[in-house]
């Protein structure tokens, strides 16, 4: 596949996926407007945000403020490159795809932090620093559970990892993997119940000063990030494009949707965790569990 082909594929995937995710989230809130209204909700919302002007604060860091949504979307896009859609070599089959993905997801910290820093306003800034605490706490367990899937595959290529699941999906072979992955992925996408940087106790936190197109691009980039995380989740734990009868790409789509719906519903039904509890949770619960996952899976693979 050429670079241009991959670019078109990734962009299309993220735009469509982000749309579906926003619709799913809208349905999860439980307003009585119904499915039809939810389907047009993203369009109406985007139209409104495009009509609003971009506001600024007194002395913001303009460059950082414009860079943050761009960087977040860039990271979401580059994280999706190594994920194969219907065959091991489809997509940008990168030998060390897992490393690229892991690196991109941890740099999300920079995008979120500067988005909170840029407006020079107290509440967004607290949000940015909260996110730093979160990523430092879950970055290691997140990388560990993703890396563990490379052990039986003997490769860091995502295509090879999917192929290694032809007998048994890793969600069963590595039972701790997917739950830890979903929890840490929600945290990295600052999605509920870990939406601490954008919490309602900070009046919207990092996004409190953003309006119009700036808010639209930020929300879009975050939805795209969720899609990338769900795509990788299904590839390394749910056997990616493997599945009977249906074509491979359809399996990828179905499994991605399942993970997106799980994440969306958790975001709206679970209470936001306190930041101190979260740091404790990341280090004392998630990290040891992730280490157990590594060695248990290693033992099984031998």
């Amino acid at each position: 596949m050429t670079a241009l082909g991959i670019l078109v594929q990734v962009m299309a995937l993220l735009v469509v996926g982000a749309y579906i995710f926003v619709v799913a989230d809208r349905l999860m809130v439980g307003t009585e407007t119904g499915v039809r209204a939810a389907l047009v909700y993203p369009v109406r919302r985007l139209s409104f945000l495009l009509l609003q002007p971009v506001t600024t604060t007194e002395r913001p860091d303009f460059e950082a403020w414009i860079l943050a949504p761009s960087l977040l979307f860039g990271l979401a896009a580059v994280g999706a490159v190594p994920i194969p859609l219907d065959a091991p070599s489809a997509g940008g089959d990168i030998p060390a795809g897992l490393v690229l993905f892991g690196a991109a997801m941890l740099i999300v910290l920079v995008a979120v932090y500067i988005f909170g820093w840029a407006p020079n306003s107290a509440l967004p800034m607290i949000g940015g620093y909260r996110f730093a605490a979160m990523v430092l706490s879950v970055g290691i367990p997140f990388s560990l559970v993703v890396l563990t899937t490379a052990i039986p595959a003997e490769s860091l290529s995502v295509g090879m990892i999917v192929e290694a699941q032809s007998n048994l999906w890793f969600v069963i072979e590595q039972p701790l993997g997917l739950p830890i992955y979903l929890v840490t992925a929600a945290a990295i996408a600052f999605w509920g119940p870990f939406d601490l940087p954008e919490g309602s106790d900070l009046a919207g936190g990092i996004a409190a000063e953003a309006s119009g197109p700036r808010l639209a691009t930020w929300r879009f980039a975050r939805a795209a990030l969720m899609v990338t995380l769900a795509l990788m989740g299904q590839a390394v734990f749910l056997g990616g494009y493997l599945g009977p009868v249906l074509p491979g790409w359809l399996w990828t789509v179905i499994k991605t949707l399942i993970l997106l719906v799980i994440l969306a519903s958790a975001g709206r039904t679970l209470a936001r965790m306190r930041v101190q509890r979260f740091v404790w949770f990341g280090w004392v619960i998630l990290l040891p569990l992730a280490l157990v996952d590594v060695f248990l899976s290693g033992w099984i693979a031998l």
Partner: protein
Amino acid sequence: MELKERLAHLAKTGDVPVFAVVGSGHRSPVRRLRLSDGINLVASPRHAAVLLVAGTLTEAATETVSRVHDQMAGPRVTVGWNHPEPSIVPLAENVVGGVPDVTAAIRQQFANVLTGTIPGEPPLLPNVDPVEWRGVGPYGHGGAGMTGGNPYGRPLPLRAPARDTLELDQLPITIGPWFAGFPPGLALRVLLQGDVVQGLEVDSTRFVSDGPGGVFERALREPTLIRDLEMDRARHHLEWMADALLICGVDRLALRADRLASTIEAGDVQRVDRLIASVRRSLLRPMTMRGVGVLPPDVDLTGLGPVARAAGVAEDARAAEDGYDDLGFTPVTHTAGDAWARFSQRAQETTQAIDLAGRAGNRLAFGSGAVEAPDGLHRAEGSRPADRFVAMLEVVLNGEEWGDLVTTIQSFDIDMESVSAPKDVP
């Protein structure tokens, strides 16, 4: 421009982002507005297109409301709701009526301002720099201090006393009175070091006028049906729970609590029980509330209602009433005294109230000068519990992380409409 028209046509049928300034007597109605189709109450004016000014505000609120108005990104429009003083902010329209009326008005004005039928409102405050420019260069560089001079007029944060030879900053900032995480009208001046509160002072300015007083105020003066009192208590607690759930990010359950508050009937305990079971499954206790907002042991809890009972003080004015005695009333208590105990306390008092209301028949409560209101003991003479809560904030919240501070303040259920005038605060 044709593109803009097309966008406006699409956007006007969508959700209206509303920033609400809630004056006296309108906390409940604004909460009910959350159930209205197509109204989305937002926490930051930057996200809003409509400013809703509900109920009565004091003269002192003018500047703060104008500031919030100007912070809206625009095209913006202001709608009043039973708001008698157009002097505070110029209103595009003042609606006198209930939730359906104001919903229709908000939707109409939103469509008008998007399609250009009415122009967006200009800023209200004068376009002058707040503080004189004291920087040397165009970016404030070249003077003394970290960035040299005072960029954009405002000074850099204060230097905290050195600790372990580490010099850190402290940021004094006033938050409120229209910060969605606080009760409407509460403004706090906090000294923040990082995200931790190192000093705190309550702004004694009154921003909301005295409340009209509901069934509990009436019960102080005349015999009242227990049924009415208890149903009002249940509704009040359910609305409070919806607020708590919103602050903790459980929007779905908050909506259910709101819906329950507007439709609950006497004796219908099961629906409340189901809601509380869902709240437990949302992990509200372990994730957010456990161990947060515990009061120091020397705080006097008498008369503080659910907050006192959540800390083990089995004190309830209803226990002394004959009518309640007939119904076999005994106060519920919890022991932990944290934010979750307060939530759980109010949840159980809600089911208890609905049960009592269902069995109360025509029994009357004779207030005899004291009535157990949802936020604590009200007496015919003397201050309301809100005064005591406001007075204790300073002690309770010092050293708290910001999120815990918001959770704690919400857990008290402070009604700023019943706070005494500044001179009376003890």
